[in-house]
């Protein structure tokens, strides 16, 4: 670099970068996109660290995306006094997390396991299982440096909208390029960015724009059909299913042996998704067998009128408003079914659905 130009070079660079950052942030704010936290390894690890104070009032929740949408943590806290520890992970099987908790000698708390059959009953080595394993195995290596970085990042994320890596990072933007699809290749589900946001407790919520727009909802329905077309046509069965049940029982027994408690929950799905699930994963063969094999109680949404009154706009997840109602209805059912002391009955001044807090 010439000795005469370095100061100008550095200052112009700084100016250009700052101008871009300010402009980029203002652009997305102008688009009305809500703020969302990155639900990454560090965020998961920060929650994983909280499991040791788990009680029936503050259960650990593992599962897939449905319970992240369907369990409203503020509503739960309003009733029980404490927020659950949300460890569920989108598009994955909770079994690796169950194994992890079973193997953790210090975990003797309360565990709620959300069952989305097509993800829970995936064979070993499948994508939903491997993705969950990545999170679980990364946790012990969550270094002090990563922890410090996570809290700094969180401070920035809570102010800057463009730091939404699911929607506004380079790769999601590249995926929007109008390039012809390659026959036979599938790049995974591509959701509209209005679909949902994630808050700092790892709860997901559909955006108001998504709830109001059937065209967006139809896009997600199309994504589910696409996912279905690229999923294995036959559900796991035979010895592989037995192996899954055995492994699940083993982990639950480990937790129970330490004084912990476990409950299965089947959250709502509707429409074509529900029909496909019924056909591929008949309740008697999967859910009922799971409860019987593991000697564990479970709450199936269709067994309770108060849980079976919801319509999922895109067949698979509850709206924020319905999540509150679902959670309000779920708590007394859990208390009745398990006898867990999870707080007083709901008061009437329940939180407003529009106050989904980031």
């Amino acid at each position, binding site marked *: 670099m010439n000795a005469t130009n370095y100061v100008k070079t550095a200052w112009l660079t700084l100016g250009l*970068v700052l101008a871009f950052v300010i402009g980029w942030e203002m652009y997305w704010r102008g688009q009305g996109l809500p703020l969302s936290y990155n639900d990454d390894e560090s965020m998961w690890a920060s929650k994983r660290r909280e499991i040791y104070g788990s009680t029936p009032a503050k259960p650990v929740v593992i599962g897939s995306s449905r319970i992240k949408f369907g369990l409203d943590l503020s509503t739960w806290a309003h009733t029980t006094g404490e927020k659950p520890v949300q460890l569920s992970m989108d598009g994955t099987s909770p079994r690796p997390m169950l194994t992890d908790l079973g193997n953790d000698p210090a975990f003797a708390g309360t565990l709620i396991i959300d069952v989305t059959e097509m993800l829970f009953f995936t064979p070993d080595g499948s994508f939903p299982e491997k993705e969950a394993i990545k999170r679980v195995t990364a946790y012990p290596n969550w270094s002090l440096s990563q922890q410090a970085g996570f809290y700094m990042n969180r401070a920035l994320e809570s102010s800057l909208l463009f730091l939404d*890596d699911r929607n506004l990072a*380079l790769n999601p933007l590249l995926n929007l390029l109008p*390039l012809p699809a390659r*026959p036979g*290749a599938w790049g995974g589900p591509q959701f509209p960015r209005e679909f949902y946001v994630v808050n700092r407790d790892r709860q997901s919520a559909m955006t108001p724009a998504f709830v109001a727009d059937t065209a967006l909802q139809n896009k997600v329905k199309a994504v589910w059909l696409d996912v279905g077309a690229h999923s294995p046509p036959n559900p796991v069965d035979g010895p592989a299913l037995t192996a899954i049940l055995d492994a699940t029982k083993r982990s639950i027994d480990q937790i129970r042996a330490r004084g912990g408690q476990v409950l299965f929950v089947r959250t709502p799905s509707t429409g074509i998704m529900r029909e496909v699930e019924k056909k591929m994963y008949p309740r008697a063969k999967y859910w009922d067998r799971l409860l019987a094999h593991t000697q564990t109680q479970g709450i199936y949404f269709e067994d309770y009128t108060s849980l079976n009154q919801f319509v999922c706009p895109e067949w698979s997840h509850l709206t924020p408003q319905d999540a509150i109602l679902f959670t309000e209805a779920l708590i007394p059912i859990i208390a009745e079914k398990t006898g867990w002391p999870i707080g007083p009955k709901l008061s009437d001044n329940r939180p407003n659905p529009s106050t989904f807090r980031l």
Partner: protein
Amino acid sequence: MVFNSFTFIVFFAVILLLHNLPFSWKTKKVNLLLGSYLFYALWNPPFILLLWLSTVVDYYMARLIAVEQRQLRRKLLLTVSLVLNLGMLSYFKYGGFLLENFTALLSALGISFQAAKPDIILPVGISFYTFVTLSYTLDVYRRKFEPEPSFLNFALFVTFFPHLVAGPIVRPEDLMPQFHSPRRATAQQMSWGLFLLSLGLFMKVTVADGLLADTADLIFSLPFPVQMLDAWTGVLAFSSQIFCDFAGYSTCAIGVSLCLGFVLPDNFRYPYASIGFQDFWRRWHITLSTWLRDYLYIPLGGNRHGAFRTYINLMITMLLGGLWHGASWTFVVWGALHGLFLCVERIIRQTAGRRRTAAATQLAEGIVINQASLAPPVTSGSAFGQFMLAMLTLFFVNITWVFFRAPTFNGAMLLLLSMFGVIPNGGTMLTTTAIITVLTVTVVLIGCHWLLRNSSLSELSKRLPWWVMSLGWAVMLILVILTQKSSGSFIYFQF
């Protein structure tokens, strides 16, 4: 702590501030040393004990070796240092591998032996700082220089955070003298250092992690064959990824050092424009290849004992170089292939040299053979011929990367068979976006390497108008900010 983290930004800002406050030079060095320990400890604090052990033992062994006149005693002291350093490296890096192979050997002999799987965590950077301290002790033993009298200088040489965990593998003569007198970056050094840091982050965060990692990870993780296009795209993705990841780290390290007023040696010199494997190893991970040359190849005899021994020495050096990268037979095969290519290249060069001599003799005798040809001959001397040779080299380099990256031999073979169309009906895995991204990065990378192969970025920057330089710098930083997502680790940390 990694360079691509918010933690590092804060850490570096504090270090820079302390380094530029009016403290004594000794205080500044203490600051740098404590900062370096903090930089390392934020991964896994207990492993700092190994670093201390290695530092203390090598400091005192070198001093004892230097004053000792009896050869046997000197050898004994050197052995203590070697056993400690290589022992730690062997235990942490190769313990599991050795046990696994021992079990397999016994099993092959019909002896049933089941050992408990060792739960050994590899301390970050152990391969790098072990080589740094070894070079110091070996050089003192060879009386190349006197041992460093200051423990502070020696400890800082070993621990200096920019190079500590993934190189460049500095030699004592490269860095230690720089600690003898006060150093502070000039405005020009600071500016260039920050530019290099930005470039390194761009290579790592945007290119390696953002644009390439997913494609490489997907293709190398598949247990079934893929189409030829997918296979090649996956391998090219890894080829560019590992360069941008590792050279990105080195560039960050050099930039960070420069901001503090220290100069670290180059570690990469546009290796994907190499013409031949000899050239490749002069351009790829230069500080490792020169280390292996000086402390392994030459002590083995180098090329001083005839052709056969030269080839044997080359193979031993490259096999151990492969094993340095990881405790797996796939790394050994990677090293063996590089050794083999180096040997073949040496044979070709020697044969060509003999032919040229013979041709010159024939020409001198007046015998001229005219050969008819439809196309102009592609000679290795023309620019096009040189480029084609570089591409041929890169082709073979990419073949070796398959073994380097594949988790198993089966995986490597499956991918190789897919690359050469031996398995015709493989899966279609990559999207148009992924393929175009990888191919664009590959072409741009090769283009940059080819254009700069006989030059340098520094020289290029001098030729550019300042605002063009600034624009390029800003684009890199903006893309880093846009990419957001970056793995917490560099590929070479695992080595």
